[in-house]
């Protein structure tokens, strides 16, 4: 790893000051250190915030649930409140990455992690997202790239947990050290069309303090498909939630952002109980706008499969039948 200046923030004021000096935040550090080891992230100053314990923990508040930014994936996976009220949320992370990584990786870090694109992750490929001239996925091996075109770069969004948060319309609470800021997670993420270099709207001088889920869904389910069952990123995943007579159907790992399948949501409408046939129709609708690349056409079929399965699972039905 290249050399960097190191600091520890003890509170929001100190952290804001660090950001003002150009420090980059390290929480669990898994993604940041990976990027630095690959010499892609060239931050010269790193500020550790693991000492800010007030940013850690899961609390019920105002009829919803507040998850501190530094809450680890394992804490979320094991949380009894979430397990009962919103099982899809812990399900998204209980097999994410590895047990050792989940021990330190935080919810904010998971949301903010950089894309897993294998061209982006190698310094030798000076791709669009790294100020280069080309997206190598266009003519290269794009097996794991986006199947929904959203601009010149073809990453998929790597977060497992973000789709569940998008499904329930979570708020991202951030701070610049003085004032709290709130972002609706449904328009927090940026497509490559909106911005080629950034995956979200969080400005450099702000940090996430909390994720607030205003309301728990009545039904929820998470389904993923992986090539390998031990430590793998999904080829496609889906979160389906039902609340206030509305379904949210969010696809993950298939597009540059957690993708709201509005066409599928329209198909299921207000129906609380979904049968096989309707689930299948919704699944078809979800992939209507998919446009796979040369190597990843099979994942359109998988996107369809996870939508069908998530809807049936949310309704307590056996999707294997």
């Amino acid at each position, binding site marked *: 790893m*290249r*050399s*960097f200046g*190191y600091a520890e923030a003890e509170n929001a004021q100190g952290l804001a000051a660090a950001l003002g000096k150009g420090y980059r935040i390290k929480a669990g550090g*898994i993604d940041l250190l990976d990027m630095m080891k690959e010499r892609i992230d060239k931050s*010269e100053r790193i500020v550790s915030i693991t000492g800010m314990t007030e940013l850690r923990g899961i609390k019920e508040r105002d009829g919803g649930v507040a998850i501190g930014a530094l809450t680890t994936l394992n804490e979320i996976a094991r949380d009894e409140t979430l397990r009962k009220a919103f099982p899809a949320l812990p399900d998204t992370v209980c*097999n994410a990455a590895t*047990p050792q990584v989940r021990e330190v990786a935080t919810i904010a870090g998971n949301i903010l992690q950089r894309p897993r694109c294998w061209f982006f992750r190698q310094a030798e490929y000076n791709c669009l997202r790294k100020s280069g001239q*080309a997206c190598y996925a266009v003519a290269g091996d794009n097996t794991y790239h986006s199947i929904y075109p959203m601009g010149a770069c073809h990453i998929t969004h790597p977060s497992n947990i973000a789709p569940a948060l998008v499904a329930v319309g979570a708020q991202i609470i951030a701070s610049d050290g003085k004032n709290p800021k709130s972002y609706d997670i449904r328009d927090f993420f940026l497509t490559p069309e909106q911005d080629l270099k950034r995956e979200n709207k969080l400005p450099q001088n702000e940090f996430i303090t909390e994720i607030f889920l205003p309301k728990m869904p009545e039904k929820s389910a998470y389904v993923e498909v992986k090539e390998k069952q031990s430590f793998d990123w999904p080829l496609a995943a889906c979160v389906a939630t039902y609340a206030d007579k509305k379904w949210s159907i969010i696809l993950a790992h298939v597009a540059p952002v957690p993708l709201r399948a509005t066409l599928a949501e329209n198909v299921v409408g207000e129906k609380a109980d979904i049968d096989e046939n309707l689930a299948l129709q919704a699944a078809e609708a979800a992939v209507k706008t998919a446009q796979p690349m040369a190597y990843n056409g099979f994942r359109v079929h998988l996107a369809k499969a996870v939508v069908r399965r998530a809807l049936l699972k949310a309704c307590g039905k056996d999707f294997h039948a």
Partner: protein
Amino acid sequence: MHDDEQSDVQQAAFRTSRRGFLKGVGIASAATVVLPGLSLGQEEAAGTPGLKEFGSGPLEISLKVNGDERKLSIEPRTTLLDALRTKLALTGTKEICDRGSCGGCTVLVDGRAMVSCMTLAIDMQGREITTAEGIGKDPGFAPLVDSFCEHDAAQCGFCIPGILVRSAALLKEIPNPTPLEIREGLAGNICRCGTYSRIFDAVEACAKKGGVA
């Protein structure tokens, strides 16, 4: 802080067209991004409330490893893995993938299993670190170590210290794991020789005999 010019942005780009790609495309870099106000140093440490700055140079720190306070000189960039192996001669913690994806460098930090390759040593001050060597000497974990040995849970053995450490944490978290819980609990560890069956048996047998303390 060393050489400021290291902030050069690498511009080794290929041209966008496929034809352009084929021949004579290596493009030298040019653009240098100069970041403002970078003169990090110890002298800057004072001043900002709520922020402790350490600079980038060598530092003396103390780590509590396997019950002993150990003093060592590191840089902020030194990973816990490198500190253990090269400063403290604890080479049971293996470097295999160096990206947190194989579990070979797993250690316990305050009883929790973490990958030391993705952990900064400087962050570990004041924490209790236990390596495979430490597990090997801890009477509380002796039943687990013995169970690994009795089951011959090693072939080349390179992955095994990391798997032992992760198993120790697993049995603390779940004293009587199901076969699936054992597999999922070890899902962050790779064994290339394929000793997994023995490892599962060792963990299960240890749990059935009363587990770890």
